[in-house]
């Protein structure tokens, strides 16, 4: 298709104001009459609250209000799926992130002081520090129904028989870290209530309408009288999918006499109270025939969701759905447990459970290849499912599947083809290099059982430009630019004539979350559905104005032409306005879904998946165990690429986040208390850990997507994890099963390897 905007390297429309710092994020704002809010967090990871005394805090000069659970007019709980997290704890605290009271004061310092004056009498209870222990009878129950939040199981074929007949079996246990989103803008925002009781909450989030619902539920307040503005966001990655501080802001705003109240978590508070990625323990047993055909996979995954559910159940379900990789394995037995502990709170995070299982299946693919003396790409090519084939979880994949093509591209890329040469070019004699690859996939959209729709509006503005409104927030991924590209393409105008508004319950329609790699696909389709209606409106209006037949009207770039006359869009707006007609159109889109849910899967399968293969080269310092990722090749199947520049941005950011996950990052919690405090000890990659990253998209257009696009926001960080693990092994012979692969872990693995060698030599 010949396009002017779609598929082109269009500069981000929000780029200049972001790189110059001109853009104000919501937590950047200060108002003259503002007050500061602070949240009192629990002292203990697990305790009974015997009493809360706020008198002294209330009497501190400069304090405006101090609130507890007694001040919650509505339901004292939140949570996207099960609202099991108290807004303010009344009887039990289950993690040190739990909120117990709120204070608002004239200055931040006074608010902080007020917190120290709140006397909470606790009776400490036994701490559940380990997910497996949580499942035993001796562990205290953290919630009325026990510590197992959810359980999913997918079983196909006959696993026992398959293992018996297999030629080769690999079996290992994998441990993954509690990764932190580490967004630059910590959780925060503003709340203000006007004289008429209309409440405005400005707080970065990933679904303004759902945030509004959760606020209204706790306030027992008409949602129509609440406005939530949730965009722009200084980073989220899933970490602002759940309620962060919105309800606190709303509660405080009800008690500040109309003064705006601001909460902005310090990094330390964000580490403790913000959700994290679920640490998993994954036991996996994979079997193959001599020719490399995979025959069986058995998986037990235990995810630590911490004190509350948030999206934990969905994370485990998605993990299990993806636990066999993009392969067709006929016999599988896959089981996942989502477990409550007192270890903070885990929830949504880019990859959503797939990271933790991909490292298992892809490591096994390489171990099988090695044992069979087979090329790892050949082994994968042999086992991938193609469009129309049956996946490991047992459904026919009807949407586009690009794995095979990504593997072919990997096979032909410079890094893979010349890997022996690159590997020999070590920078110092005690260093060793390895090159490996891994492939993965990621469902797009919500899966079965949840509403999944997109909606967009396009409004003709008085100056003749168009205002495109999409609920999905600009989370930093660049969806606003994609929406503008689609609108400009379909309205046949210059992109500078497109204005975008996102994430505002007053100005955009409910169009679902900006999660699940869905916003380009879903929001894009909604814009594409609205655009023809706008064209229609322009043509009809022009016809009416000129008293001509609609067929005589031509849409030209930025104006309308008919019978030798030119009508600027400004005039059309004026005509509509003068005639009291709406200048706004809507577009709606329902994300396609599979009809039948796989029994016991908790929402699988998805209709659509994005696919990606990573090739990496690492260099390991065998003296210290330090691993340096030197090169990354990212090969996404994104369907049609809407904006190569945007895709590269995602591919590069995802790769770096994957490097962090594999080599550095973990929020350490001991007996319910955080050992990791802030960025001093939470190590994320800097520019010096950022390698050369090349992005080679393969385009397998997806019929249902806007212009053939799919989503890749999450899969960009997934296979690189397993690829780095294997590259460390390729370099040194040592396999790492416990992430992050810190220098100490790699060094110890090398030490063990040496010991084994000495022993076997004897």
């Amino acid at each position: 298709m010949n396009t002017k905007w779609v598929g082109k390297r269009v500069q981000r429309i929000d780029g200049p104001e972001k790189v110059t710092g001109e853009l104000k994020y919501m937590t950047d704002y200060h108002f003259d009459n503002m007050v500061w809010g602070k949240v009192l967090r629990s002292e203990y990871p697990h305790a009974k609250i015997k009493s809360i005394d706020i008198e002294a805090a209330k009497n501190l000069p400069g304090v405006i209000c101090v609130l507890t659970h007694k001040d919650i007019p509505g339901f004292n709980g939140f949570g996207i799926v099960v609202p099991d997290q108290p807004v303010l704890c009344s009887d039990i605290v289950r993690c040190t992130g739990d909120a117990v009271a709120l204070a608002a004061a004239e200055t931040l310092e006074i608010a902080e002081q007020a917190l120290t004056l709140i006397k909470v009498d606790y009776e400490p209870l036994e701490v559940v520090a380990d997910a497996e222990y949580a499942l035993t009878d001796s562990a205290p129950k953290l919630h009325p129904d026990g510590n197992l939040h959810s359980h999913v199981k997918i079983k196909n074929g006959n696993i026992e028989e398959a293992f018996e007949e297999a030629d080769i079996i690999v079996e290992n246990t994998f441990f993954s870290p509690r990764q932190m989103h580490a967004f630059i803008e910590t959780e925060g925002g503003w709340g203000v209530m006007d004289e008429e009781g209309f409440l405005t909450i400005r707080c970065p989030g990933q679904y303004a309408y759902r945030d509004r619902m959760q606020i209204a539920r706790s306030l027992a307040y008409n949602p129509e009288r609440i406005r939530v503005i949730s965009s722009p966001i200084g980073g989220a990655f899933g970490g602002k999918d759940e309620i962060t501080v919105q309800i606190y802001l709303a509660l405080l705003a009800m008690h500040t006499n109309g003064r705006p109240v601001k909460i902005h978590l310090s990094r330390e508070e964000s580490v403790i109270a913000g959700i994290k990625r679920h640490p998993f323990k994954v036991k996996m047993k994979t079997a193959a025939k001599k020719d490399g055909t995979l025959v069986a996979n058995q998986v037990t995954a235990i995810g630590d969701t911490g004190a509350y559910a948030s999206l934990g159940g969905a994370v485990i379900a998605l993990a299990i759905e993806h636990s066999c990789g993009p392969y067709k394995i006929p016999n599988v037995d896959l089981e996942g447990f989502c477990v409550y502990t007192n270890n903070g709170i885990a929830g949504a995070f880019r990859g959503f459970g797939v990271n933790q299982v991909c490292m298992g299946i892809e490591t096994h693919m390489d171990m099988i290849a090695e044992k069979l003396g087979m090329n790892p790409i050949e082994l994968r090519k042999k086992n991938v499912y193609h469009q129309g084939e049956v996946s490991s979880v047992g459904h026919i994949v009807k949407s586009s599947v690009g794995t095979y093509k990504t593997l072919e591209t990997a096979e032909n890329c410079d890094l893979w083809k010349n890997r022996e040469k690159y590997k020999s070019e070590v920078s110092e004699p005690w260093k060793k290099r390895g090159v490996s690859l891994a492939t993965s996939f990621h469902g797009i959209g919500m899966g079965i059982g949840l509403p999944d729709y997109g909606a967009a509006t396009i409004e003709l503005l008085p100056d003749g430009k168009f205002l495109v409104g999409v609920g999905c927030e600009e989370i930093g991924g660049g969806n606003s630019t994609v929406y503008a590209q689609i609108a400009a393409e379909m309205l046949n105008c210059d992109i500078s004539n497109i204005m975008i508004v996102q994430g505002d319950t007053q100005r955009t329609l409910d169009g679902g979350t900006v999660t699940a790699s869905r916003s380009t696909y879903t929001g894009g389709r909604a814009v594409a559905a609205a655009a023809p209606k706008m064209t229609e409106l322009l043509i009809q209006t022009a016809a009416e104005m000129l008293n001509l037949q609609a067929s005589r009207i031509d849409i030209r770039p930025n104006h309308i032409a008919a019978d030798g006359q030119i009508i600027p869009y400004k005039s059309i707006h004026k005509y509509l306005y003068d005639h009291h007609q709406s200048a706004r159109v809507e577009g709606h889109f329902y994300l396609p879904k599979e009809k039948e849910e796989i029994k016991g899967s908790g929402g699988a399968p998805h209709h659509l998946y994005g696919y990606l293969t990573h090739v990496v080269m690492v260099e390991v310092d065998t003296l210290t165990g330090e691993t340096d990722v030197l090169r990354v090749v990212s090969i996404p199947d994104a369907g049609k690429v809407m904006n190569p520049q945007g895709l590269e941005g995602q591919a590069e950011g995802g790769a770096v986040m994957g490097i962090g996950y594999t080599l550095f990052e973990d929020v350490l919690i001991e007996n319910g208390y955080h050992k990791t405090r802030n960025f001093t000890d939470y190590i994320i990659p800097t520019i010096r850990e950022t390698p050369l990253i090349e992005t080679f998209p393969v385009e397998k257009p997806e019929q249902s997507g806007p212009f053939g696009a799919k989503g890749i926001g999450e899969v960009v960080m997934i296979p690189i994890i397993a690829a780095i693990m294997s590259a460390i092994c390729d370099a040194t012979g040592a396999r790492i099963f416990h992430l992050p692969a810190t220098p100490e872990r790699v060094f110890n693995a090398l030490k063990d390897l040496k010991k084994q060698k000495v022993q076997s030599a004897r």
Partner: protein
Amino acid sequence: MLVSQIDMITPSSLSECLNQLSKAGRKHKLIAGGTDAAVRMKEGKWRPEIWINIKNLKELRYIEEREDFIHIGPLTTHTDMIQSQLLQRKADVLVEAAREVGATQMQNMGTIGGNIGTASPAGDTLPALYVLGAMLELTSLTNKRTLPIEEFFTGPGRTVLKENEMITKILIKPQKPNGLGIFQKLGPRKAQSISIVNVAISLTMDNDRKCAEGKIAFGSVAPTIIRARKCESMLTLGQLNEELIQNIAKIAWKEVMPISDGRATATYRRDMASALLERGLYRLIRRWENQ
């Protein structure tokens, strides 16, 4: 003490500063680049009544060679040291250490006086100063004393500095023409990281691969910096070939007394003392041979 209650005064000369420091009956503390001070203030650990801001005392910011010593003013920033040709020629180990402090922003703001003043066992310039035989000049309104750097530190964050004193000069011995040094750091990542183990090595070479004299100091493996005297004595045993280097490195773990913390276990730190020494000596020898 609340942050908003803390005062700050900015003396315009050293004597005014010493005067301020001599005032008894109040809690004051010097602040230079503030890269440690601001962090610890935020954490609630350092909350004096008054900050004495010395960042602009230009008279304390210099690097000069006089008689047998290189004189470094305490307000010299890490960037100053990295860019100093004098240090590059005659104290390369200190330049390398400064280059490993945080990243560019920290190097621009952070000072050598502050790095010493904080007295962290992981302070990166400290092992380099040890192998360069550094002396510190401590001055109060009424007194001046000079002592070897080894005698300055008494534990993590603890020094012999008195309330009314400040560091006014750092003296180091320039390397000889056939001298060269290296600083090796292992952190959790390449930039903006606190050392898990670090080591400074300074050698004076004879000819070939024969070392006439050498000094080795480890950081982050004990309450203060540790000179590895056993390893040092082995440096001169023969040609610094692979075998000797490995033998020296092998005993390094015996010289250190590390602890386990969130960054690493004691065992790994011990192993790394050996590894960094081995790697440092390989690199030094290669550099020597390429000269």
